[in-house]
């Protein structure tokens, strides 16, 4: 089975110059926990609800003046739409993560693949990813 068969698509994104307040609002409205950060069609990072919790809410920074680029994660792991889901699983396990941004072969963002999506095709694949990641309780 290919990544494109089970990934979520399309994916909402946010620009790095947007405020963290806008990012939080977008995550709230869309019921998502992370947004790929895209500038001029280029994937430059990823921002999660936890990034906003620990780097904005916890610190006293102002959410309107603090931009997405100041708190986002810059290392984003990706896979390709036409990769086998076993390969995507291996990338997650090797990096101890639970989601990947999915790119097409022209490197444009095509979707999101999470451990939840993996669970829909294989409980075993998803479980191995869970076991390899460090849980945040």
């Amino acid at each position, binding site marked *: 089975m290919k990544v494109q068969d089970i990934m*979520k698509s399309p*994916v909402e994104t946010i620009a790095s110059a947007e405020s*963290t*307040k806008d990012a*939080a*609002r977008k*995550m*709230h409205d869309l*019921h*998502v*926990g*992370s947004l790929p950060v895209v500038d001029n069609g280029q994937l430059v990072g990823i921002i999660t*609800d*936890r*990034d*906003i*919790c*620990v780097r*904005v*809410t*916890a610190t*006293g920074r102002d*959410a309107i003046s603090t931009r997405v680029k100041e708190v986002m994660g810059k290392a984003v792991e990706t896979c390709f739409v036409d990769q086998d889901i076993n390969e995507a699983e291996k990338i997650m396990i090797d990096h101890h993560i639970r*989601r990947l941004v999915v790119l097409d072969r022209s490197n444009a963002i095509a979707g*999101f693949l*999470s*451990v*939840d*999506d*993996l*669970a*829909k095709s*294989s*409980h*075993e694949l*998803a*479980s*191995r990813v*869970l*076991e390899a*990641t460090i*849980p*945040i*309780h």
Partner: protein
Amino acid sequence: MKVRELMTSHVESITPSTNLRGAARKMKEMGVGALPVVEDGKTLGIITDRDLACFAIAMGHDLNSAPVSKIMTKEVITCKADQDIADAAKLMQANRIRRLLVLNDDNSLAGFFSVDDLVRGSHELAGAVLEAAIPVH
């Protein structure tokens, strides 16, 4: 297998009057994503890192004065430490969630039981919980 054998015990808790910034700081320091809200030995709710981003920031609450009680989830799904993990998994699936608060027989707080704990007992049960959970990408 019983919940007690796999659960995360000795969980930190927080009082309902703690301000939102204090709650976020505690999650950051403890490296956790959720805290039970406890007062006088009674569990009143649960607050997550997602709440502290998507509600606290997105809704523009005053982080230094708004208390945890304002945004916490009050309807908390719980299980007992001596329940079978298959029962706990069923509860998660039915409610489409990924973690339960674990109570002792006297209803005092015993810990957290999450899909990350569950996976160490059964890949099949953990996979089924992930599949049923409300996806947060």
